[in-house]
């Protein structure tokens, strides 16, 4: 087993991996950019090593600097988390060349599966159903127009590299294709260092269900249940759950076997996720493989009782998986909410700022994987994920009830976020019935905001509280040491104008 692991990431996933290292008695090393000197992962790690300036290209995406940090601190292995370099085969190869264990699949497996285009070809070759479209990237707007005309609108533009909804655009008519192609390419380039995008038939309002896989270096390759990830905005998941509601055991197993077949064709080891689109008739289509730990891995952990980062580290160290396929026995139901610094009233746009108050919920069935703390200023440079709130219950109804209770307890002020949006989702009959698909969020937001029986009372209490608080003579409990310039204050004010009780 390793003595020291460098965690080449930041935010909640870096904190999650530090916890895994601690559970195994392994020294954890955080890396950081200048703006992240006081980020939570730096405060929590055993050691910390500066990478460089704040832009990701100078820090978390810079292979040379990450490898240099690993050399300096004497790490034996690198865990890449998700995003940044996690799906970069070149980085995995560079680790191997530097004598470091990359905690993930081999560079060869990543190359075979990591790009969506390559993965589509592999799936096709292994008789796993895929959606109509280009297998290779499209190299010009003209080519994109031609293919789109052939398969018919709507079409989906997708970054060949990466995932997480970045560099992805739904295009419903030819007139929008050029601008969407440019934006998707630019976003993909900025996020993954690769601007290539491909095109496929868009299935409107499908379900998005994925299979967790895990393999060791001794030929064992298992699937660990599925995750339903249809609740998305901006093509990015915000709520995930396991098991998927309304999915037959027959389809679940067929998907599991297809996922293992795809992974086996690429000699896959370590953790990965095979994503599928599922239509109303439970036909499923291979989408892509995420060759790394997934953001939403906790829902699988809560139902299976397994610790995925720990298993990743173990198999990367050469250990055999300690169980077989039959040993994976899910129990109950788990749901995750991704808490983002974003504004649901402004199309979920990122909304950085300083956290003035943070009291996460706790108690039975509640897990919080956070990457922030009270007083932390969420930087502009990176993904706005603050934390993940996950609940477990004996069944879906209990997991939902506990999530509702957790949202009730959650205190988070100082910036805009989506907790109010979740509060609305977990009171919505359509969500509660389990009939979600990727069009769900748009449908929900098209409805008028419902008001509860206690809302007016709450508003009266809040008015009184605000008046008393404003009149209080104690100094304002601002949590930062930085003084805020008048200009910043004015800007903040403008942002506050849109504020409402809906949050």
């Amino acid at each position: 087993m390793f003595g020291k692991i460098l965690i080449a990431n930041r935010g909640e996933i870096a904190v999650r991996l530090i916890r895994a290292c601690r559970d195994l008695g392994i020294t954890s090393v955080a890396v950081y950019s200048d703006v992240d000197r006081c980020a939570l992962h730096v405060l929590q790690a055993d050691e910390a090593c500066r990478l460089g300036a704040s832009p990701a290209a100078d820090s978390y995406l810079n292979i040379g600097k990450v490898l240099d940090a690993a050399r300096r601190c004497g790490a034996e292995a690198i865990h890449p988390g998700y995003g940044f370099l996690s799906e970069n085969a070149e980085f995995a190869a560079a680790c191997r060349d530097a004598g470091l264990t990359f905690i993930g699949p081999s560079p060869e497996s990543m190359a075979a599966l990591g790009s969506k285009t390559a993965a589509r070809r592999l799936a096709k070759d292994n008789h796993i159903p895929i959606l109509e479209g280009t297998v290779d990237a499209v190299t010009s707007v003209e080519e994109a127009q031609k293919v789109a005309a052939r398969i018919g609108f709507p079409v989906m533009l997708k970054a060949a590299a990466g995932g997480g909804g970045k560099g992805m655009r739904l295009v419903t008519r030819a007139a929008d294709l050029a601008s969407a192609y440019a934006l998707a390419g630019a976003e993909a380039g900025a996020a993954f260092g690769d601007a290539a995008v491909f095109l496929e038939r868009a299935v409107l309002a499908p379900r998005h269900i994925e299979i967790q896989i895990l393999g060791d270096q001794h030929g064992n390759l298992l699937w660990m249940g599925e995750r339903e990830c249809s609740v998305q905005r901006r093509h990015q998941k915000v709520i995930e759950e396991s098991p998927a509601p309304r999915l037959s055991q027959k389809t679940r197993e067929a998907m599991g076997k297809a996922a293992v077949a795809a992974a086996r064709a690429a000699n896959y080891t370590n953790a990965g996720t095979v994503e599928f689109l599922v239509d109303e008739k439970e036909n499923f289509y291979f989408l892509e493989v995420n060759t790394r730990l997934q953001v939403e891995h906790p829902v699988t952990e809560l139902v299976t009782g397994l610790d995925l980062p720990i298993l990743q580290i173990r198999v990367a160290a050469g250990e055999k998986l300690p169980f077989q396929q039959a040993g994976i026995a899910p129990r109950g139901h788990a749901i995750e909410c991704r808490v983002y610094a974003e504004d649901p009233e402004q199309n979920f746009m990122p909304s950085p700022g300083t956290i003035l108050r943070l009291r996460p919920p706790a108690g039975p069935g509640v897990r919080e994987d956070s990457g922030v703390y009270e007083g932390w200023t969420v930087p502009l440079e990176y993904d706005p994920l603050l934390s993940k709130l996950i609940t477990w219950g004996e069944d879906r109804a209990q997991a939902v009830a506990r999530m509702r209770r957790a949202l009730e307890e959650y205190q988070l002020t100082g910036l805009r976020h989506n907790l109010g949006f979740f509060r609305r989702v977990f009171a919505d009959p359509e969500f509660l019935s389990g009939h979600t698909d990727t069009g769900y969020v748009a449908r929900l937001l098209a409805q008028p905001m419902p008001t509860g029986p206690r809302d007016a009372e709450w508003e009266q209490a809040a008015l009184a509280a605000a008046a008393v608080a404003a009149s209080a003579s104690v100094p304002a409990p601002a949590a930062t040491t930085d003084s805020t310039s008048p200009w910043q204050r004015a800007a903040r004010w403008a942002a506050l104008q849109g504020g409402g009780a809906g949050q």
Partner: protein
Amino acid sequence: MICEIQIGERTAKLSLEREANGGWKILLDGQPFAADIAFPNRDTLSLLIAGRSYCFAWARDGEPGRTAIWLAGGGRNTAVEVRDPRQARARHQVQLSGRARLNAPMAGKVVKLLAAPGALLEAGQGVLVLEAMKMQNEVRSPKAGTLLSLAVAAGDTVATGALLAEVE
């Protein structure tokens, strides 16, 4: 203390007086409002109102005469504005002026301008692209009209709420 508080769409007038026994005398839009108020710590308030328990953690923000209070309690996290009624009047007039202003919906970097001053815009047409947290976001015109001015150039970093452009 008399103040005007805006919470969501609603604006209310609050009058607040400390009583000799340490309690509070509150008038909400002129109506007496009975609450047992206590202070669990310096940034939390507990209110018992007709037996119901409300607890709010608060943080102060804003500037003289216009305090923003962030409240967290009962599953809601929201910013309310507490105004001195006289100063509020002046501000209102500014807001009512004719032009549509495009403010930055988030802090970010202007990566591309999509229209030049003088351009005729459709409602919903893109004016510029703002990048934040690795997302490219088109900022669109709220209405059809002429792009009067651009307050930023490509490459500029802007704070949330900063003026980007004006459309008439």
